[in-house]
C-alpha cells in the first residue's frame, strides 16, 4: 500500500498546473473559485468559453479513450488532474454532465453512430447536457417515472408527454437525456426507455425553481409533444432502466478527488477566518475544526481505496458508504463555517470568498438529498453491503 507518485506522475502534475496557471488569466481570471456548488449562476457564458479553452488545450474528457479525444489517463493521473484543477481554483465545469455522465454512458452502451454525433460536441465544449430523471412523483423512487414516450409508427420519432424536475442547468443546456415510460401499463423499472432530446424544440417548457440559497440553478421541464428521434434511443426501447443505472454509476470516480481539493480550500478558508476573528481560541470550535480536518483525511483515503479497487468491478463497502460519508461531512462543514463566522454568519454582505463559503454552506443542505438521500443510502448499505432483508413492496 503506497502513497507516493512516480516521477512521471509528478511531471504530469507540474504540466497541468502550469497550463492552468497560464490559461486562467485575462478574462478567465475572474472565474477562479467560481461556479461551484451554491454558485452555479456565475457567468455561464464565460464558463462555456472556458470549456472551449480547456478543449483546445486537450483538457476536457481526460479520462476518455484517445480515439474519442480523451487522454486515456491512468487513475493516478486523473486524480492528479482533478486535484490540480481544483487547486488552481479553476471554475465549476458546465460540461460536467456531458463529460462525466452521458459521455461515458454512450461510450459503454451507445451505438457508433451516437458516439460520432454526440461525443465531439461534448469534448469541444460546444454542446451541453442536462438530466431528465426525477419527477414530482419519482424522486427516491425513480422507477415510478410517469413521463410517457410513445413511438409514432409513421415517422419513428418518440413523442414525449410529462414533467421532469430538479434539472440543473436546463437553461444553459442544448440536450437532455430522459428516462420515460414507453410501455403503457408497465410499472417500476420495466418498460422504460432512455431518450436523448434536443431542448430547443416545440413542446419543451423550462421553468426555474428557486432554491433556499436564493439562486435557481435547477428547473422543472414540461414536455408536451416534444420529440426524440428513433436513432436517439440509448439501448433498447423498454430497457432504459439499465442504461440509467449505468449512467448513475459513472458519478463515482476520479472527479471525487477534485471535489476534495475544493473541500480542502473551504476548510483552509474557514481556518484562516477562525484565526482572524478569534474563533480559533474557542475550545469547542477548535475541536470541531480538528474533526473536520480528520474527516477530510477519511474522505481522501476512502476515495483512494475506491480507486485502487475499481478494477474489481463489484461495489465494495468503501464505495457504498462514500456518498453518505462525504455529503454528511460537507453538510457539517457548512454549519461549522457559519458557526465560525458567528453572528456575522447571518449577514449577506461579505466579500467574495466568505460569501461563496456561506452559499456553499447553504447549498450543502442538499448534499444529503441529491444523488440518493441519506435514507436511501442507508437502505442500500444495509441491503447490499450488509445483506439485510430488502423492504417488501406493496403488490
Amino acid at each position, binding site marked *: 500500500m503506497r502513497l507516493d507518485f512516480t516521477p512521471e506522475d509528478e511531471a504530469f502534475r507540474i504540466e497541468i498546473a502550469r497550463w492552468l496557471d497560464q490559461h486562467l488569466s485575462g478574462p478567465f481570471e475572474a472565474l477562479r473559485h467560481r461556479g461551484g456548488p451554491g454558485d452555479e449562476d456565475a457567468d455561464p457564458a464565460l464558463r462555456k468559453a472556458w470549456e472551449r479553452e480547456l478543449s483546445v488545450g486537450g483538457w476536457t474528457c481526460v479520462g476518455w479513450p484517445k480515439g474519442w479525444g480523451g487522454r486515456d489517463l491512468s487513475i493516478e493521473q486523473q486524480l492528479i488532474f482533478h486535484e490540480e484543477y481544483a487547486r488552481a481554483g479553476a471554475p465549476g465545469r458546465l460540461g460536467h454532465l456531458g463529460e462525466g455522465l452521458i459521455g461515458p454512458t454512450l461510450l459503454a452502451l451507445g451505438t457508433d453512430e451516437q458516439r460520432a454525433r454526440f461525443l465531439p460536441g461534448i469534448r469541444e465544449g460546444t454542446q451541453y447536457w442536462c438530466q431528465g430523471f426525477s419527477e414530482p412523483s419519482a424522486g427516491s423512487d425513480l422507477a415510478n417515472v410517469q413521463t410517457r414516450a410513445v413511438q409514432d409508427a409513421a415517422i419513428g420519432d418518440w413523442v414525449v408527454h410529462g414533467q421532469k424536475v430538479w434539472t440543473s442547468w436546463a437553461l444553459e443546456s442544448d440536450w437532455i437525456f430522459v428516462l420515460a415510460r414507453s410501455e403503457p401499463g408497465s410499472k417500476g423499472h420495466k418498460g422504460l426507455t432512455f431518450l436523448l432530446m434536443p431542448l430547443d424544440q416545440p413542446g419543451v417548457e423550462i421553468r426555474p425553481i428557486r432554491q433556499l440559497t436564493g439562486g435557481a440553478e435547477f428547473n422543472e421541464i414540461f414536455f408536451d409533444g416534444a420529440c426524440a428521434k428513433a436513432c436517439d434511443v440509448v439501448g433498447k426501447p423498454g430497457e432504459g432502466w439499465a442504461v440509467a443505472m449505468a449512467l448513475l454509476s459513472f458519478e463515482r470516480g476520479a472527479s471525487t478527488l477534485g471535489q476534495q481539493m475544493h473541500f480542502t480550500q473551504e476548510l483552509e478558508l474557514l481556518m484562516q477566518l477562525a484565526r482572524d476573528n478569534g474563533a*480559533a481560541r474557542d475550545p469547542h470550535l477548535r475541536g470541531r475544526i480538528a*474533526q473536520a480536518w*480528520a474527516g477530510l483525511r477519511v474522505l481522501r483515503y476512502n476515495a483512494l481505496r475506491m480507486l485502487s479497487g475499481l478494477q474489481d468491478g463489484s461495489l465494495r463497502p468503501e464505495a457504498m*458508504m462514500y456518498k453518505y460519508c462525504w455529503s454528511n461531512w460537507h453538510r457539517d462543514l457548512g454549519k461549522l463555517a457559519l458557526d465560525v463566522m458567528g453572528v456575522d454568519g447571518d449577514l449577506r454582505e461579505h466579500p467574495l470568498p466568505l460569501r461563496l463559503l456561506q452559499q456553499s454552506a447553504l447549498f450543502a443542505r442538499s448534499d444529503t438529498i441529491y444523488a440518493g438521500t441519506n435514507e436511501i443510502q442507508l437502505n442500500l448499505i444495509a441491503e447490499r453491503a*450488509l445483506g*439485510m*432483508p430488502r423492504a417488501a413492496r406493496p403488490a
Partner: protein
Amino acid sequence: MNFSLTDDQVLIRDAAVDFLSQRSDSAAVRAAMETETGFDPALWAQIGAELGWCATTIPEDLGGLGLGQVELVLLMEQMGRRLSCAPFLSTVVLAGNALLQQGSEAAQARYLPRIAAGELRATLGLAGRGVGLGAPGVRALRSDAGWRLEGSLAHVVDGASAELILVVALVDDGLGLFAVPRETSGLDARPLQTWDLTRRVARLELSGVALDAAARIDGDAMNLQTLRQVEARAALLLAAEQLGGAQQCLDLTLAYTAERVQFGQKIASFQAVKHRCAQMMVEIEATRSLVYGAAALADSGGDAGAVMLEAGAAKARASETLFFCAQEAVQLHGGVGFTWEYDPHLYLKRAQASAHWLGTADQWRERIAAALLDA
C-alpha cells in the same frame, strides 16, 4: 501509488482471521478472563514463537520480518476483533515500538531479537497516571552504580506479568527511558481489578530501584517530541485494534438480528434496525480508511509531523467508533445485550477503557487544532 493491500498483506490478514477464529474465540477469551495473568501461555507461544507476529516490524537484522505499519495494523485489527487475550499490545505496540523509535543500538540489540522470537514479554510505563503521555511518575537519580528510580506508575498494561518494564523517567531536567527487569528489587506490582477483563493493568511502585548505567536505553536522546512520536505510533496501532472490535460488534449484531423474530419477522427487516446497522458500517469503513491511510503514510516515508497528526486523528475516530458500535450492539441485541453471557458487553468495556489510552479523542483533537490553527 496504490492503495490496495498487496497479496502478501492479504495473506497475513487472512491467516490471522483463521488462526484467531479457532484459537481466540469467545470461549477462549472468557477462559483467559478468569486467569490470574489474563492470558493463555499456549496461545502466546503460538502467536509469539510459531507465527512470529511479534517480529512484524522489527528489522530483519534483529531477527524480525522487517515489515511495515500496515502489516501490524492488519494483525491488530484481527486481534481487536476477537479481544484476543495476549500481551501483544504491551510487548509489541508499547515496549517494542518504544525500543524501535527511542532505543539505543545496544538496547535494540539486547531486547528486540528476544521480543521478535516471542521469548520476552515486556511493557512500557509512559506516565505516572494513565496509559499515554502525561507527567512522568518516576524520577531517575544518578548513583555510583548507575541509577536509582523512585516513583509510581498507576496504570501499566500487563504490569504484573511482563518480564521487562520499560519506564519513562525524569532525568535532571529531561527525560530518559529505562529498562527494569521484573525481578529487580524495589519494584512492586499490584494487579488492578478492572471492568475490562480482557486486558490486565497493574499499579507499579518503584522504591529505591537500583540499576546499572546500561539500564538507561534511550542513548540520552529522549525528549517530549520523540516521546510524542512513540505515543502516536502506539495510538495508531491501538486504533487498528479498536477498528477490529467495532467490526465484530457489527457482525454480532447482524447475526443476531438475522435470527431474532418478533412481530412475525426477523428484526433485521425493520428499517430502523437496518439504518442503525448501516450507520455502524459507515463509521467502521470511515475509520478503516483513516487507520489504513495513516499506516500507509507512515510506510511511504510521510512527514513525521503529518503521520503523527493522522495517527492521532485515527485514534480519536476509532475510539468513538468502537464505543458507538459497542453501544449499538448492546442496544440492538435487546435484553440479551445486557447479559454477561452475550459478547457485546465485552466490547463495551474494552471501548470505554481504550478510549482513555494513548490520548483521548479530545486530547488528540486539541493537538491537531494546535497544529492547524496556532502555527
